């Protein structure tokens, strides 16, 4: 009979789990390492092992006007999606987890549906929908398409924060003399801030890296992921892995930065 000697059950299986987790992590990051390596290869077509190394492709990425255009489009879309989705999601999360109201359980299930749907098909459906309303594809439509998927995600993230929130705290502030707006500004918002911050971060990164929705809704304009895909399929240069590495670095920096800010705030 196994006598548990630790939280899990036995040292051997704990070690096995650690090893397995490392294997999975290696599995996850191996292709990303491959991308980094490919970006450092001097020659145009990828061959491993790399004989000559060069950073020139990074230079050409950073210097490319075309790429700068797509970068701008991506950032524009991501920034708008972030702002709008956070505002909608704060309200949505309060409706999800804070106030008891008739229809709440139905609302909870409905609002999460877009997460459980393949994005490519959704993108095509939105394209069809936009043509019915005579709306031309473009970055505006892409923002809309991103919102359909991202608002539920951010709502979920903020709702988790809302669940841990003692509603009596709002009532106490009101009782002490605060107006509704003061309660929201002084009490609700600061307490929810960690969730809002993570939500905003997720919104930005999910929009920034999105391909299936963007590809069908941006029309003539292009985002970075679209450009990457086009070049991957035809006209490959190491600019592709170079830009891929840069965007990965950006995501990593934002995530770690957000985490670091979060822990620093908690320590204050």
């Amino acid at each position, binding site marked *: *009979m*196994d006598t548990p000697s630790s*939280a899990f*059950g*036995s040292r051997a299986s704990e070690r*096995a*789990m650690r090893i*397995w*987790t490392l294997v999975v992590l290696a599995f*996850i990051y*191996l*292709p990303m390492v491959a*991308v980094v390596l490919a970006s450092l290869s001097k020659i145009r077509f990828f*061959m*491993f092992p790399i004989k000559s190394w060069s950073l020139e492709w990074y230079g050409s990425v950073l210097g490319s006007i075309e790429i700068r255009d797509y970068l701008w489009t991506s950032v524009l879309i991501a920034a708008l999606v972030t702002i709008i989705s956070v*505002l*909608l999601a704060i*309200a*949505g999360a309060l409706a*999800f*987890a804070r*106030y*008891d*109201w008739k*229809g709440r359980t139905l609302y*909870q*299930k409905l*609002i999460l*549906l*877009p*997460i*459980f*749907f*393949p994005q*490519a*098909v*959704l993108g*095509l*459906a*939105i*394209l*069809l*929908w936009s043509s*019915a309303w005579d709306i031309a594809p473009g970055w505006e439509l892409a923002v809309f398409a991103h*919102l*359909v998927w991202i608002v*539920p995600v951010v709502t979920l993230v903020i709702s988790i924060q809302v*669940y841990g929130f003692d509603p009596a705290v709002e*009532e106490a502030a009101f009782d002490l003399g605060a107006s509704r707006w003061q309660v929201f500004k002084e009490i609700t918002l600061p307490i929810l801030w960690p969730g809002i911050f993570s939500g905003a971060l997720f919104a930005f*990164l999910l929009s920034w*890296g*999105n*391909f*299936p929705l963007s590809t069908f809704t941006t029309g003539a304009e292009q985002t970075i992921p679209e450009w990457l*895909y086009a070049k991957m399929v035809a006209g490959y240069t190491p600019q592709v*892995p170079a830009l*891929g590495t840069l965007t990965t670095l950006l*995501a990593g920096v934002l*995530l770690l930065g957000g985490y670091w800010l979060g*822990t620093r705030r908690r320590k204050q």
Partner: protein
Amino acid sequence: MNAPVPSSVSRSEARGPGEKGSALPVRDRGLKALAGWARQPGFLLSLPALAVFIAGFVGPLALVVIYAVMPARSFGVEHLPTLENFVTIFQDSYYLSFAWSIGLALASTVILMLICWPVAYGLSRVFRRSMILTLLLVLPLFVSENVRLFGWVLTLLNHGILDGSLRTLFGWEVPDLLYNVPVTILGMVYVYLPFMLFPMALGVSMIPEACREAAFDMGATRWQVFREVEIPLAMPGILIGALLTFVLVLGSISEAKILGGQSVIMIAHDIETAFTYAQNWPLGSALSTLLILLTGVLVIGLLSKLNLDKLLSRK
């Protein structure tokens, strides 16, 4: 503002109206009840998100379903409804794409359940929500899937990382590893891993430690604890992860395109082709409708059985 009914007000002693001289106000009916319902703060706050939901999700999908019964290769919805697109689906080889998609989705889901369980377990119990580990596992979600899949292409290509290393180290020449079904599954498993992992971790976190210890204390073996205590208690999380993975792989497109080449045509690819190159919106819509139906039945089926408050407030 109407505060919600305080939980301390017990309903165990409810009395009906008309008892002992206490006359209750007449039950609100019709418009008055509707107005009262609309004034709930929760409802008002839900409207913006619901607006996006209806305008961006329900609307487009409803239109797709309508288009599905329009004549093939037509545009606009002014025509008489017809089922010819569905006939085409079953006569031509489109149902094959469906079958393949379902098969690959099942395979990926099962594989991911096996891969992710130990990690989910570790996340929740052994590593005790180590932030670094969570961050490392979350990061891939935010890197464009094209980039990540491309990494696999670079690894498995001729003269790629794997082939190149083996050639240099051992002089082996490996045949082309890309553009077949197994590598497509690899891609799917790879991309959708976080979508299985995190709901599972949520499920595992719902197993109270005390239940496990009690089971051991009563003489259960580790396998019995796993089967009788852990799996049932983590089931909501497991089901969500499985459903999410299945549905997303079912409708996926990039993995088959980038890693699978022509070896597998997923249903989403057929839909895309119908909408773009073939300019056959009704056919694309019909295919989409079947996908919507399948997805809808599964998702609504599971979600209706879940208590989201209980699930999410644990965290």
